[in-house]
């Protein structure tokens, strides 16, 4: 998700190609080609420029309309073009063309939650996130929490520092909708990062941008990434990090 205003003009994009299974888009105004995953122009007059990232969510429709009842929803085009709701199963079997790496910590098509803070990049395997429901970590000098709403889709990342104190969230067992309890203050947080009860009630954690991606794609565009390990203390580097 990118802003498409740049240098005082509004760009209009169209699909133009593919680069190692990540699509390229062309802006009609300058004819430059942009990489979808990182918003960087790879060819043309704008080469090297980057679009401004727009913080977005990947959550269930139920959760989204609950939080934003005024939301507008993209309709179908005249032909009703859509992909199957079981697309993930099909895509999981598609071949991977980026070079394989010996001793790679994850399968190429493992789903990861990719987070960058400054120069630090880390991949959180989606199955680990879904199992743990709340991961507390430190990345690039910032304390963060990766929260899973438990519906199979919805994941958010937050900066978990309030007034210089870290907020240590634990998933509240059997809570529906999902709630997370701060061990330190006993305050209860919801999935939007807002404290709904306890001493911190009303306080809001700040979102940290993340993307949901395949490991092979995340690794290609973040060669120095580490991978979060469930133990919480050991983060493995991707082999060959920095060599590309």
């Amino acid at each position: 998700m990118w802003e498409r205003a740049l240098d005082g003009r509004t760009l209009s994009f169209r699909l133009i190609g593919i680069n190692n299974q990540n699509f390229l888009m062309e802006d009609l105004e300058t004819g430059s080609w942009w990489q979808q995953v990182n918003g960087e122009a790879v060819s043309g007059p704008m080469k090297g420029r980057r679009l401004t990232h727009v913080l977005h969510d990947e959550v269930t429709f139920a959760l989204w309309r609950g939080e934003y009842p005024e939301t507008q929803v993209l309709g179908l085009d005249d032909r009703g073009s859509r992909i199957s709701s079981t697309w993930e199963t099909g895509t999981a079997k598609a071949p991977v063309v980026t070079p394989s790496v010996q001793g790679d910590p994850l399968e190429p098509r493992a789903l990861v939650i990719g987070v960058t803070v400054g120069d630090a990049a880390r991949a959180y395997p989606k199955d680990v996130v879904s199992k743990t429901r709340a991961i507390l970590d430190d990345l690039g000098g910032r304390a963060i929490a990766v929260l899973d709403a438990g519906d199979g889709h919805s994941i958010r990342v937050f900066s978990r520092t309030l007034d210089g104190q870290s907020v240590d969230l634990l998933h509240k067992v059997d809570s529906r909708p999902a709630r997370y309890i701060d061990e330190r203050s006993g305050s209860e947080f919801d999935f939007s990062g807002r404290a709904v009860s306890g001493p911190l009630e009303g306080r809001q954690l700040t979102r940290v941008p993340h993307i949901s991606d395949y490991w092979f794609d995340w690794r290609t565009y973040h060669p120095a990434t580490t991978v979060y390990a469930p133990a919480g203390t050991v983060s493995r580097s991707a082999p060959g990090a920095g060599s590309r």
Partner: protein
Amino acid sequence: MTRAGVAWFAMAGALVVAVAVVGLPVWLIQPFSAQSGSGVAWSWQLRQIAPSLTVIAWLVVVGGAALLAGQPSRTRARRVARVVVLTAAVAVVSGVAWFARQNHFEWMFRPFSDPRFVAAGAATDLPAEEPVIGVARHGAALAFPITRIGYHHLVNATLGDVPIVATY
């Protein structure tokens, strides 16, 4: 070389160049194969020059065909064969010049050029458990169901007064 020889030679050269300038980007950036940075850069370059280069090739081939079609032939069979070859050359160069103006990725995934949005309450055809890409800012919120944007891959939209491109 005779005048006819020069015409045949120019036509063949124009055809090879036209097919290469259009075909190479298609081959270099085909899905499910690996791309290199230089391959993408070459594809971009070739696609920039393809529209004008294929018009030049078309003029050369059509001009050559017009010249050669009027040449005398020793036998009727040779004349027929020549007409067939010239017709094929004009057909190929015309097809290539047309393709240079197409975006075949939008054949695979038709663009949603006038995206329509409905209120959440009116989106009755969207199951509650389906994932959406959601974006909200300053009181405006948009949801892009993944089954829909996953087909188009990108949708140009406006969030409040901020122009955005949603991608998946």
